């Protein structure tokens, strides 16, 4: 087994980005993700990269757009209010089909909010906080190891689809330390970017834009984007499933909550209750198929989130209504304890169908 | 010996060249071009000095100058 290093989630993410070949970072400070820019401000210059502390999140995302347009692997990171400020830029990037990684280490909202762990930005991340018909590719790590690994994966997917990818996590994942295996990045180099702006030398001038004026051109462009999202749903769904065959109830939870749920599942097991888990790793595309299939079999689904109910809509959309669906959520930085979850498991089992 | 050529169909008839010409050799035509504008035309190319001021001032880059 490769050697392990004890790393903070934010740092592991930053190292994942470097491992993925990212050499450009533009961002603006905000808790609880400041380790990322702080680490990269020290490391990137050493490896020929560029770190700029932008004057704002608006500037960050637009610098990211420029660097991406120029053909670079590039990222930014922020939290709630800052991510909201990036919505115009992210919409432009999706429209111009530009890849990049945007990290959201969530903080409590709405408003300024505290930095307690929360999952209140699920809707914003998966339903497009920006204007127009588009989606972000959204990945939700649940361990420091995944902070590293999914950062790499996010760049790859972003490049594959020429669409911004987002890592959605919370303060627990950002601040927690765990042992990590820092795999060397394999040979899979970033794909060629023939569309990048590099100067029209030996080729025709090319441009990147989002405004199409000829009859039907814009509609065609939007349908092409939709085609990419359909392909994503088909080809690049990621999830972790446990005990999906013989459980009495299956829990759907992502990120930090899935960890708490695992403890609860063990506690339930100790009491002789068999509980399964589906942990979506891609939030968009949502693992609808496995949720549907599992729910059909197990008939009882419990969704746990650190918000007032957001991913539960995607679960609802995936399952038949004969399935019993229960939601348990704590918003505003309230963290469900394993005991809370165990209680909810029992309620789910006790309740009659709808 | 100099001359200018005004691209009649590219011209939008703003009249800047008319004013710019120090020798007053350009005027606005009476017939619409395909764009629907009354374009500029060189009234007297023989006296053109090729100073190119008309061309410099043309926002539509509709004038070429020869010398």
């Amino acid at each position, binding site marked *: 087994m490769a050697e392990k290093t004890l790393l903070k989630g934010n740092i592991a993410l930053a190292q994942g980005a470097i491992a993925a070949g990212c050499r450009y970072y533009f961002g603006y400070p905000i808790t609880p993700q400041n380790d990322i820019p702080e680490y990269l401000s020290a490391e990137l210059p050493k490896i020929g990269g560029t770190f700029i502390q932008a004057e704002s999140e608006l500037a960050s995302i637009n610098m990211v757009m420029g660097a991406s347009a120029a053909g670079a692997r590039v990222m930014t990171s922020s939290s709630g209010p800052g991510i909201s400020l990036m919505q115009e830029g992210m919409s432009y990037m999706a429209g111009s089909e530009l890849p990049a990684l945007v990290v959201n280490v969530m903080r409590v909202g709405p408003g300024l909010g505290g930095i307690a762990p929360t999952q209140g930005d699920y809707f914003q991340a998966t339903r497009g906080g920006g204007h127009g018909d588009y989606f972000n590719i959204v990945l939700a790590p649940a361990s420091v190891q995944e902070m590293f690994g999914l950062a790499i994966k996010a760049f790859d997917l972003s490049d594959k689809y020429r669409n911004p990818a987002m890592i959605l996590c919370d303060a627990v994942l950002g601040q927690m330390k765990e042992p990590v295996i820092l795999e060397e990045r394999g040979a899979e180099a970033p794909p060629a970017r023939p569309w990048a702006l590099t100067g029209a030398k030996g080729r025709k001038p090319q441009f990147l834009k989002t405004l199409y004026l000829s009859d039907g051109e814009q509609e065609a462009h939007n349908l092409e984007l939709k085609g990419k999202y359909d392909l994503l749903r088909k080809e690049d769904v990621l999830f972790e499933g446990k005990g999906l065959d013989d459980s009495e109830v299956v829990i759907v939870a992502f990120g930090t909550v899935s960890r708490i749920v695992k403890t609860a599942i063990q506690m339930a097991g100790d009491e002789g209750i068999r509980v399964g888990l589906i942990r979506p790793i891609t939030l968009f595309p949502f693992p609808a198929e496995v949720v549907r299939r599992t729910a059909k079999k197990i008939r009882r689904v419990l969704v746990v989130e650190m918000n007032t109910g957001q991913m539960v809509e995607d679960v609802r959309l995936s399952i038949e209504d004969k399935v019993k669906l229960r939601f348990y959520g704590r918003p505003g930085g309230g963290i469900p304890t394993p005991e809370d979850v165990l209680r909810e498991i029992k309620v789910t089992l006790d309740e009659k169908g709808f | 010996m100099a001359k200018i050529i005004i691209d009649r169909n590219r011209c939008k008839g703003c009249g*800047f060249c008319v004013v710019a010409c120090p020798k007053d050799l350009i005027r606005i035509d009476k017939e619409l071009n395909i764009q629907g504008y009354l374009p500029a035309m060189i009234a007297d190319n023989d006296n053109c000095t090729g100073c190119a001021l008309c061309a410099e001032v043309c926002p539509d880059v509709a004038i070429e100058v020869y010398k």
Partner: protein
Amino acid sequence: MKKVFSRPKSLVDCQTHFCPGCTHGTAHRLVADAIDHFGVREKTIGVSGVGCAVFMYDYFAFDAIEAPHGRAPAVATGIKRVHPDKIVFTYQGDGDLASIGTSEIIHTANRGESITVIFINNTVYGMTGGQMAPTTLLGQKTTTTPYGRNFRNDGYPIRMAEMLATLEGVAYSTRVSMHNAKEVLKAKKAVRKAFEMQIADMGLTFVELLSACHTNWRVKPLEGQKRVEEEMIPYFTLGVFKERKEKDFL
């Protein structure tokens, strides 16, 4: 006879969508002229703001990108940091640069990014129908100052070239006009100088070009040119506000 004046190679040979007499066309030519002059067409990347000049990519024969409204300097920063050897410029209107994009231009200038900024000051928002711009003159009627711009409600016309000149990162800041041939020739020099200094990597270079927007001023082209001279220039003084001589500054 030899052709002594023709369309720059960096300027695509096509009709523009600009209104008759709109000096956006002139400014485009001056940029293309400078790019040709320094032979850098194959390493130039243009960044357009949103405004009447958003279709830049249709008119220039080099790479280009459309930035969100006001954010061209940030987009240009991203590009230039990836390609320090390329020539990068933004092309922005007064709504784009002096209003919504204030923060981006100031900090890009303050960082001294080696880019060139072409700033078209026509005192109104052209593309959206003639609303007030930060540069609208006092008393000037626009579609959102129907009683004329009043400083108690609407503030003052802002002078960007002067303000930016106060920033260390700026290598060159100048204001020129395009309302007659003489001024166009000066403007041409200024634009060339701006690109020349970018090529020498001296910091941010900024050229403010006064322009009429006849359509939204609701005047004939020649009247518009006159108003530039008689009303704009007295407030927006022409001149060079900063010109760095040395590369190794500070």
